[in-house]
């Protein structure tokens, strides 16, 4: 019996390599390779805010974003909001696969925004989440004495007063090929606060995610909660719901949101409307990607 066992052992361990064994060897060899999660989100923007995604090296994204008027702004007066729109045009470029720089211009408050995004950690079989750091500076170029959405008249005495800074740590996990969720702890600094009651520094936490319905269609949601808004404030937390349609080189994002502005200062800190009374804006973002990779030269006919 013992002998039989030994012979059996020898046969098993002796070097007979069937094709499955070859595959097994390959499997163990490839286990050393790191497996990164890709395409956690379709775009660099979830709805209003950023995602962990950065632009790939030597690629340029062009963003066109629109928010129509509020649904409750009346039929005769405003055709349920379709009579007017706020627009933001933006460009962003991938210096490396990790580092993106971007700039945009919003019609709301005639704001310019400049930002950098850096993907610090990538979700893989070793690390459970992707971490991207985001920093932006927004400058209002509206005439001094103009009113904000809230009605407050802002007097600016120098250009520094027109600036707002945003810092975000964006943490996301792709749970499976359908579901990705992210958290966005956010710090905002206003060089000039709106009123004496309004803090210059605002702390907020965002949460969002996407659920893929099909290969090209996904649902998305985004919520930002403020932690130190004074009780006298007329501002509300921002909630946006939308769906993304992806075609060849474009991502179309259609959404409903109670925020009108498309930069952090405006949607995180200065959302004036509420979902509960129909203060909902509908809008869309369109993203178009261009490759400036040398190898892509001549690829587009």
């Amino acid at each position, binding site marked *: 019996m013992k002998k039989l066992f030994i012979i059996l052992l020898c046969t098993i361990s002796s070097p007979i*390599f069937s094709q499955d064994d*070859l595959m097994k060897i*390959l499997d163990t060899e490839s286990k050393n390779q790191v497996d990164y999660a*890709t395409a956690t989100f379709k775009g660099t923007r979830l709805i209003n805010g950023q995602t962990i995604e950065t632009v790939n090296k030597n690629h340029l994204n062009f963003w066109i974003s629109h928010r129509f008027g509020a649904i409750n702004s009346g039929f005769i007066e405003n055709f349920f909001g379709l009579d007017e729109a706020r627009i933001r045009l933006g460009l962003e470029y991938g210096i490396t696969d990790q580092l993106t720089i971007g700039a945009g211009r919003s019609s709301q408050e005639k704001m310019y925004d400049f930002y950098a995004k850096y993907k610090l950690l990538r979700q893989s079989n070793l690390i459970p989440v992707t971490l991207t750091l985001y920093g932006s500076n927004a400058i209002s170029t509206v005439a001094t004495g103009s009113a904000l959405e809230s009605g407050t008249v802002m007097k600016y005495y120098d250009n520094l007063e027109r600036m707002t800074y945003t810092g975000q740590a964006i943490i996301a996990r792709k749970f499976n090929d359908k579901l990705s969720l992210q958290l966005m702890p956010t710090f905002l600094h206003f060089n000039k606060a709106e009123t004496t009651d309004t803090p210059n520094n605002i702390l907020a936490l965002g949460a969002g995610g996407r659920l893929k319905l099909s290969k090209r269609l996904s649902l998305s949601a985004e919520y930002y909660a403020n932690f130190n808004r004074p009780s006298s404030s007329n501002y509300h937390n921002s909630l946006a719901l939308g769906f993304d349609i992806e075609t060849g080189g474009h991502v179309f994002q259609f959404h409903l949101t109670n925020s009108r502005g498309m930069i952090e200062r405006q949607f995180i800190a200065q959302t004036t409307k509420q979902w509960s009374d129909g203060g909902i804006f509908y809008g869309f973002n369109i993203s178009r990607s261009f490759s400036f990779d040398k190898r892509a030269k001549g690829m587009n006919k």
Partner: protein
Amino acid sequence: MKNFIKLIIITCLTSSTTFGQLFSTQSGETSFFSETPVENISGVNKTVGAILNTSTKEIAVSMKMTAFDFPNKLMQEHFNENYIESDKFPTGLFKGKIVEDIDLTKNGTYDVTAKGQLTLHGITQAREIKGKLTVDNQKITLTSNFDVKLVDHKIDVPKLVFSKIAEVIAVKSKYIFSPYVKK
């Protein structure tokens, strides 16, 4: 008797770690090219794992689909997300056997045909893939060109796509094998 058994065990154990007839690579190159009226699509994977047994003439190839690098990263994302579905089907595999009656331990260049199974997008197809094999002492180079029909592997091209995707993709491979060392 006891010593004899020990001897057998030792022989068994040591013999299992010699791989004289095995040649492998972890940096094989597989690329593909697809020409369409609108744009050309190309991708290259430089981390293909392949292993060749020179005595049985069996070969196995395994590649991570996410490791294909495209000049246009959006195409790369579409390749993984929409066509190959890399989350569901992460690897492309080939296992087969060289059918020609040749001695792979002797130096020379041989036209070879590998008969086996190609697995892509979770669909396995019986294939005969032709290639060229060059044996140069401890270095074996294998090149091959073959076509993959998208419909064979149930790779859907949705109607919503603006640019047309070719229905047959030309695939090129070059693997340089060296003697396999167990890590």
